[in-house]
């Protein structure tokens, strides 16, 4: 990750990046002046959560080369398990530790499910498929997404399963904007999770091994890293992060089969903007997209929130085909 930060520093000296920074700052200032500070606060809260979902997506792609179309469905798993755990704990609701237990359980469920999916599907594919890995796994994740959405519908039905709020206290006032306690909770969870992920990837033994696999697979094999296990772990972590995000945002996204669609779109926009496989860039881009959405929603209308970012991303891609902070080495990704 520190390498990513260095690369980010280097990238920011290029004219495109300078233009981007100026553009983002201009957008932020424009939004605050014409709309109000709430645009900034809103983008910070949603941006943190999108960063969480997108970081997982970037991680799976960087380490395993899997462009995960089912990332949104792990978000859905998070909302569902969050709902089930929270309602199961209804006897002790109101205690401050209950939401924490809820989101940790969702993280665990997401992690285990992700690891199982990797063992059942991607581990099998690695033993069989030689060429076209990226596109083949993409199509497989489409299948996984279809199965998960409809399994949810089959077992739990299509109705909304949500909660009113995790915390019922009075809102907090920051910069003249009142923020509900749940949103404060969400941004803190996202901050802790991103910091944890950063620590895990930068300093822990497991994180070093994961990075080794993403950088040089034969080399990692040679120094005795269990590459298969690292991939299972990576997919688990990434799914766990998405599930954590889902459970944290349960007050805003009640669980239903298609709840993962919006996070999926956003995560993909973020990851494409940042450059596939770039975890650090995904965190930065998460905030950019959130800012863009908040501005579009306020000035043009929330119906256009889905149109403007997509159109802009395609235009940005037309200028920089590997994303803003894309890697120089591209051959593997472009199979």
């Amino acid at each position, binding site marked *: 990750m520190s390498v990513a930060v260095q690369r980010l520093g280097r990238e920011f000296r290029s004219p495109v990046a300078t233009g981007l920074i100026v553009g983002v700052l201009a957008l932020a200032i424009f939004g605050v002046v014409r709309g109000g500070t709430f645009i900034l606060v809103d983008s910070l809260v949603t941006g943190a959560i999108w960063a969480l979902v997108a970081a997982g997506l970037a991680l799976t792609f960087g380490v395993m080369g899997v462009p995960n179309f089912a990332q949104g469905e792990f978000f859905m798993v998070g909302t569902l398990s969050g709902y089930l755990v929270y309602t199961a704990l209804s006897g002790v609701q109101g205690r401050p530790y209950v939401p924490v237990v809820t989101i940790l359980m969702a993280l665990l469920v997401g992690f285990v499910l992700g690891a199982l999916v990797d063992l059942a599907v991607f581990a099998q594919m690695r033993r069989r*498929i030689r060429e076209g890995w990226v596109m083949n796994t993409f199509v497989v994740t489409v299948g996984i997404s279809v199965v998960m959405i409809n*399994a949810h519908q089959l077992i739990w039905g299509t109705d909304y399963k949500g909660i009113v709020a995790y915390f019922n206290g009075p809102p907090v006032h920051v910069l003249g904007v009142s923020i509900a306690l749940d949103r404060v909770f969400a941004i803190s969870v996202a901050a802790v999770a991103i910091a944890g992920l950063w620590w895990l990837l930068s300093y822990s033994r497991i994180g070093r091994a994961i990075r080794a696999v993403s950088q040089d697979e034969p080399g990692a094999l040679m120094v005795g890293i269990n590459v298969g296990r690292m991939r299972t772990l990576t997919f688990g972590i990434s799914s766990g992060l998405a599930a954590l995000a889902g459970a944290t945002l349960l007050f805003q996204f009640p669980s239903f089969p298609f709840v993962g669609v919006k996070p999926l779109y956003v995560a993909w926009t973020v990851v494409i903007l940042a450059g596939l496989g770039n975890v650090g860039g995904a965190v930065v881009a998460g905030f950019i997209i959130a800012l863009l959405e908040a501005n579009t929603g306020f000035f043009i209308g929330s119906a256009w929130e*889905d149109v403007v970012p*997509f159109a802009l991303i*395609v235009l940005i891609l037309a200028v920089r085909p590997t994303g803003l902070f894309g890697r120089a080495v591209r051959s593997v990704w472009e199979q």
Partner: protein
Amino acid sequence: MKAFLWRRRGLGLALLALAVLPLIPPFDAENLRRWLVIGALLAGWAIAFDFTAGYINVVNFGFAAFAGAGGYASALVTIHYGLPIWMSMFAGVLLAGILGFLTGVLTLRFRGIYAAVAAWFLGLALLGITRNVSPITRGPLGLSVPTFFTTDSNLPYYYVVLGMMLVTYLVLKAVTESRAGLAFRAIGQNMEAARASGVNPTRYRILNFTLSCMFAGWLGAFYAHYYAILTPDVMATSQTVQVLVAAYLGGRGSLWGPAAAAFPLVFSTEWLRSNLDRFPGLDLVVYGLALILVMVYYPGGFAELVHAIRDRGLRVRWGRRPLRAQPGEAPAVLSDVPD
């Protein structure tokens, strides 16, 4: 001529079977005829999809949006200008072709997953626009569209869509068997090598995208005038996924495989939907599982299975050989020659 017909005997037999199918007992019920119409429509779309995915190796993940745009164009032209449907359909072809052309130009610099995602985003943007310009498209309320025939029977629709599917197949097959087809495959396998051999990737990629989207839009126009109601949902990603499932189950790069897979796919999912309606979603679970299983264990799909049976009899080898050479086997490099 005789040799030509003999070479096409498989196609002829398949067509004959498809043409008489709605007339013989189990299939002459109206609901089964409706399934046949849906099957033929999906088959046509899967052929057009495979023309891009299986040849230049770019998954057009915004496929349904282009098809839907064709449907909307055709519907709006009939409604506002009163043109006969068979003429207004060409407005659909034109719009989808232009959109495909622009997408081809815009995604030229991308490869693999980037191109797929760029096409996907363009499709989502198109869907969003269609949803939002409700004065023209009536948005999510749905546009009511004049139909081809006034009859309630599905039979005439079936022959229309079967003919459209056949035209799609024959035209795209002819293109892939020409020099352009060779160029497509070369670009799909290794763009640098293709460029080095004098193939102009720009021209062929744009040509491919434009053609594929034109046929998608044409069939989209049929969709509009068959269902008589058009909502933006026709452009959603889930529609693309249906086409993609048919194309991949059928086998990439064969054109006929996707068409052959579309019919059983539609029949099985529709059967599950109508007979097991206590379990909503079960049909799509089966759908997704089938896709996963085929992609993991037999990525060549139905077409490869047929080819393998033709070449080797029934001694089909399931799955690809593992990366490492087995003890006592020829080194992996020698056995790597693609068959």
